[in-house]
Structures are given as C-alpha cells and as structure tokens.
C-alpha cells in the first residue's frame, strides 16, 4: 500500500497490507508530530504524482536491496495535529534484521528525496506572544 492521504492513517490496515504467512517479522515505523514549543500542528504540502511515484519506487528498492517481502508507506498531507501520525511505514521480511534495516533506510529516503514539505502551524498562544513581541 502506497498512499498520500488527508485523514487519519489506519495503522492496523497498513500493517495488515504487508502481513503474510512466510514473514517472521513486521517492523512498523510511525512518524508523529512532536509538540515543539509553540507548535500546534504541522502542515504538509506534497507534489502528489511525483511523490507517489517515488514512494512506489522506494518500496520496490527496499524489497530488492534488503530482501524484504513487502513494504507499505502512507504519508498524511495537509494539517496534522500534535501527537498524530504523519507517516507510517510497515515492512515485512523473513527476519527482523532485514525488516528493521529496510524500514530505517526507507524512512531516511522519504525524508531525503520525496517531494513533501512541512511547515509549522503555531498555537494560538504562540501567535499572541509573537504578535506582542513584533508590535513593540
């Protein structure tokens, strides 16, 4: 499963998408929106056709490079609140070592080359503080 979606990610469904009887390990990575000071949410912008193509390619390369059986990558776009999952990667392999390695590599590649940009959406309190600071 490769997807870019606006709503909440159903992690269980992503995991089930790669589940298979000959896998001895499924590694799941969740990237979540961290509550940095003043940050209420992250806003993700994507170049959809290119990002989908690159995610498909990444999953295929992860399988051939690490011998993983299957990989699913789902990324949210638009506004994602603090604490919510912004990206989910699930990787199934015969053994945990390949599954961990493929998952780590794929997430690094997503951050490095897939055309997705994030901007911080400030909390109302932080905006008020900033407004006061700049009005002086």
């Amino acid at each position, binding site marked *: 499963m490769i997807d870019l979606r606006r709503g909440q990610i159903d992690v269980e469904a992503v995991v089930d998408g790669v589940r298979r009887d000959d896998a001895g390990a499924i590694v799941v990575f969740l990237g979540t929106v961290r509550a940095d000071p003043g940050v209420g949410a992250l806003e993700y912008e994507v*170049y959809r*056709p*290119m990002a989908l193509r690159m995610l498909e390619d990444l999953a295929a390369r992860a399988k051939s490079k690490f011998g993983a059986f299957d990989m699913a990558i789902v990324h949210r776009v638009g506004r994602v609140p603090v604490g919510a999952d912004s990206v989910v990667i699930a990787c199934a392999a015969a053994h945990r070592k390949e599954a961990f390695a493929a998952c780590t590599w794929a997430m690094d590649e997503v*951050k490095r*080359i*897939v*055309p*997705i*940009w994030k901007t911080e959406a400030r909390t109302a309190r932080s905006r008020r503080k900033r407004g006061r600071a700049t009005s002086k």
Partner: protein
Amino acid sequence: MSKGHMAARRGFRAMHVRVRFFATYREVSGTRQLTWSGRDGATLGHLVDDLITKFPRLAGYRDTMLLAVNHAFVDPSVRLREGDEVALMPPVSGGIP
C-alpha cells in the same frame, strides 16, 4: 512547405510547458503554476533563468533548487519538450533521523 514547417526548420517554433511552484517558491513567486513559452530546444536552465528574471526573489534559492521534469529529478541541462511539466521545488522536509 507550410509556414509552420518553415518556422520549425529555422528553430523559431514556440514550445509551451507547465511550471509548478512548491512551498517557499510558491510564496515567493505568488503563483502555484504558470505556462511558460520558450523556443523549441530550450533547456530547463533557460526556463529557470527566465523565471528568475520574472520573479527576482527566486534568485537567492537557485543553488538549492530541486528541478523535475515530468515527475523525475533532472539536471538544468535537459532539453524541454512541448507539454512537459516542470516543477521548481525547495529541498524536502529533511529532519534529524
């Protein structure tokens, strides 16, 4: 020979490509997309030069600009073709592993 063919032989034929701007570049240029017309055989580098003339604030981003044609990263030396889709993109989100 038609006028169109003669113009093509002389290299004067106009080419139209769709240009898309993302993230910071969308804010800097004030547009999401536009249609760029250039001479047949123009390169992506020519297009970028032209857009920097049109939107001078893009100049400061040139060194880190990511360029794609038809959804694949390419070098500025690549020749454009009628109907191509070009994307001007800032570096992607990155982050600490």
